[in-house]
């Protein structure tokens, strides 16, 4: 099998229009037909945030894939990006103030999006891991997810506190 046979069909960017309705929900129009509310899904959420975007209906059935949001008209591109940012919003940990272990649980005192926040992480080597290169993900006991986008560029104290647990 040659690789050129593995080509996929993308949605024609010229046929796709994304807009927000009055209630703030993203509405999709394909080939001039209103599809209604849709979900946008990043297939490469860390490396290609605006490329290979799946469009699903509310029943989670795939309508198609958009190769690159840049290929859409300017308004649609902006609307789709805004929707994706909302869906993929993840609280960013800007500083780690302390990490204390007690009975196998790790109590974090952090600064998340500029506000102080504390949370508890269990099984730290599994719940704190790199997602893609330098992006560090932390999952707390409640199932919340936090991100440190550029771990290498994080302030030295935070790095020092986390480094012993990084796997």
């Amino acid at each position, binding site marked *: 099998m040659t690789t050129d046979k593995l080509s996929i069909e993308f949605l024609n960017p010229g046929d796709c229009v994304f807009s927000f309705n009055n*209630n703030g929900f993203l509405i999709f129009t394909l080939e001039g037909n209103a599809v209604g509310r849709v979900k946008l899904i990043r297939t490469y959420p860390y490396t290609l945030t605006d490329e290979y975007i799946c469009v699903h209906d509310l029943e989670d059935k795939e309508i198609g894939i958009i190769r690159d949001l840049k290929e859409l008209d300017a308004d649609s591109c902006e609307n789709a990006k805004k929707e994706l940012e909302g869906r993929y919003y993840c609280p960013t940990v800007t500083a780690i103030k302390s990490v204390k*272990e007690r*009975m*196998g*649980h790790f109590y974090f005192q952090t600064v998340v999006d500029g506000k102080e926040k504390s949370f508890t992480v269990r099984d730290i080597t599994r719940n704190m891991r790199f997602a893609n290169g330098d992006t560090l993900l932390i999952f707390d006991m409640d199932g*919340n997810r936090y991100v440190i986008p550029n771990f290498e560029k994080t302030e030295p104290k935070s790095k020092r506190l986390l480094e*012993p647990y990084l796997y």
Partner: protein
Amino acid sequence: MVKYKVIFNIAFNTANEVIFTEILNRALYKLHLKKRPHPPAPPKESIPEPVKEVLEAEGLDTSSVIFSIKTDMTAAEEYGDTLIFFDEKGLYRAVFKEKELPKKPPKRHKKPDLKPELLHLTAIPIDEVDELFAEQYLATGQLTYTFKGEYYSLGYFSIGMLERADNFRKIFNAFKKDGSHEQYISTDTGNTCKKCGAPIPKGLSFCKDCVDKKSTVKRLFSFFGEVKGKMIFMICAVLVSSGINILIPQFSTQKLYDEVLNPDNTMAYDDLFKALITVVLTMAALKISQQLFTLFYQYIVAGILPEVIYGIKLKIFKAMQRLSVGFYTHKQTGSLMDRVTRDANNIYWFFVDGFPYLIGNAITVAGLLVVMFITNYKLTIFIVLATALILFIYPIVNKKFRKLHHKVWVQNSRLTSKVSDNVNGHRIIKAFSKETDELSEFDKISKGLLDAEITSSNTESTTFPLLSIIIYLISAIVLGIGGVMAVTTKEITIGELLTFVVYLQMLQAPVEFLSWVTTWWARCVDSAQRVFEVMDTEPDVTDKENPIILDDFRGSVELKELHFEYEPAHPIIKNLSLKIEAGEMLGIVGKTGAGKTTLSNLIARLYDPKEGVVKIDGIDVKELSSKQLRSNIGIVSQDIFLFMGTIADNIRYARPDATNDEVIAAAKAASAHSFISKLPDGYETYVGSGGQSLSGGERQRISIARTIIQNPKILILDEATAAMDTETERNIQNSLTKLKNGRTTIAIAHRLSTLRDADKLAVIDDGECIEFGTYDELIEKKGAYYKMFKLQEEALRFIGIGEETDNNEKEKEHDDN
């Protein structure tokens, strides 16, 4: 009168006791010796009083609120306090200003301002809401509602609150539908600490503020209860051994210098020689007896510890058997294995390597200081101060090393995982010829380990000599001060001074040990706490106090309005109802992930449904004895698991008393006998981890034989032949046909041909039973089953299976009729 006096006295004494207890408690709180009790937790979703006041000021009647949830977001990417609630008139959203924590704690007499500041309140008339939805995004979620087909946003929440938001959705929708919301509202206050009353976060089994290390220690030592006598012997032996150790310098160094080698000694040569011999013999006798006592306590430790650790491991394993399937799915297997092995071993090694030495070293330090103080208190004071300095420095150094060692451990684990990955995937690596890439990745990880090890070794090799210098400096200072004392004031003899130096050296190791044993002890207590967590976890699925034991287990199954979800807001089974009589066969068909296997788990009560009931012989399974229930339900699933042991052991797993005849008969019924008898070790072939490798079909046939021996009244065949080739499938189908006779059979399958004998068929789609009836009824209906049937028929024709299938024949018959 006397009666009144007695009553008065009792009342007076009781009042006094109450006042005294109150005063005592206040003093203890003040001194931080006792924790103030937490106010009783309100029901999980009730509105806090200060918030009620604010809402009432806005003209809302909070007493009529049916349900509310507090969420932690005010907008899509903004954290803040929001209250979402509803009453009979409307659905409301109140956004409050987030409270900023004061930089300094408020003064005692000044009450903190608890009044929340309402930013805005949105009210939606109840008639303008059709249905509520809880949508899930990456790290957040959104409550939305529909009205006349249009979607509207109600509010956002962080993903950790999804379960609560989904519960709110469920309650609101039930209220809107038919007012049946009461059944979903729980007055449960959540898990609270029994000691202080504070809420305990989900997933934690203890209150982090109150976790009583002392009680853990007490419980840990309770494991030694059965070997109490031996423990006392051990402690006595340690005491004597340490005591002798302290006496050795007194009877050796001091006597040797002061009584034998002293230049002022005027003794005759013979007497001097005798004194020397006495000193040497005393030294030897003391050392031998000390070693004998050491040997004695080590012998006792070696005897009792494996026994205690065996007890601990047995208790953990017993607790694990008691737990529900849900516990295993939430906890990673690795973490559980850790508890049985690593945590139990942490406890073991502390008691083997730490505990006796802890007693010995503590006694040595105390004894040495006492002896030294008697010999010369001035020098001892200096040494106590120096010891305090060492005790201060060592924990800092240990903390640093612990981090470095952890880093090495992490890198080592990465390397081990890589090697394991490589070994397990060696065929794929070779097939894709990726050896060079694998090598370079290994090299990268290996370099990480190398760097961590170099940093650790470098730090250790520079820190320890520095610490040794401090200790030698202290010795030199002692020698200097002592020397001055011996020469000028004669406060100390040369022998005493040298004994002092020996004591100082003897003090070094125990002090070092005591400075880091606390960390070791903390790790041991942590391990014990984790072990106790498993032991204390209550299983989700438990028997009632007096469960019903059926005299005649017939095997009729009824599922009534069943709802189930593994994760909040992801329903797997939705309002599913169906019924099969005893002895009937039900075929369940549906797409992958439709909820078919979950259904079999619910019937076997491996999980309890969130809503609805599962009835066996007309009785809710929650009322039945789970032992009787499970011994009467046999599951043959696609995931075959064979335990370590012989084939015969595996076949008689459900009934260990089954005879050899029965084992062979079961294997024959399962079409397994022919291949088993061809194996060199026959029924005694070792299978499972590290044993004889068997094909999927062979393993499946053994698992069927295992179920045949169990002789269950209800048989669940969960895709039992999905992964088999046609011939094996046919063989297994024949075995299963024999097995089905006289039992209620629930067969889950993709291939409709395997369900040709079913009395009834159920089509499951997205957790719902969309079609139910006999084969004829479903074909006639020309619905989902008919479509699947036609699709499979076409697929069979396409791949060239020309013969008329049984189903085809059946359809023809049906058409003819």
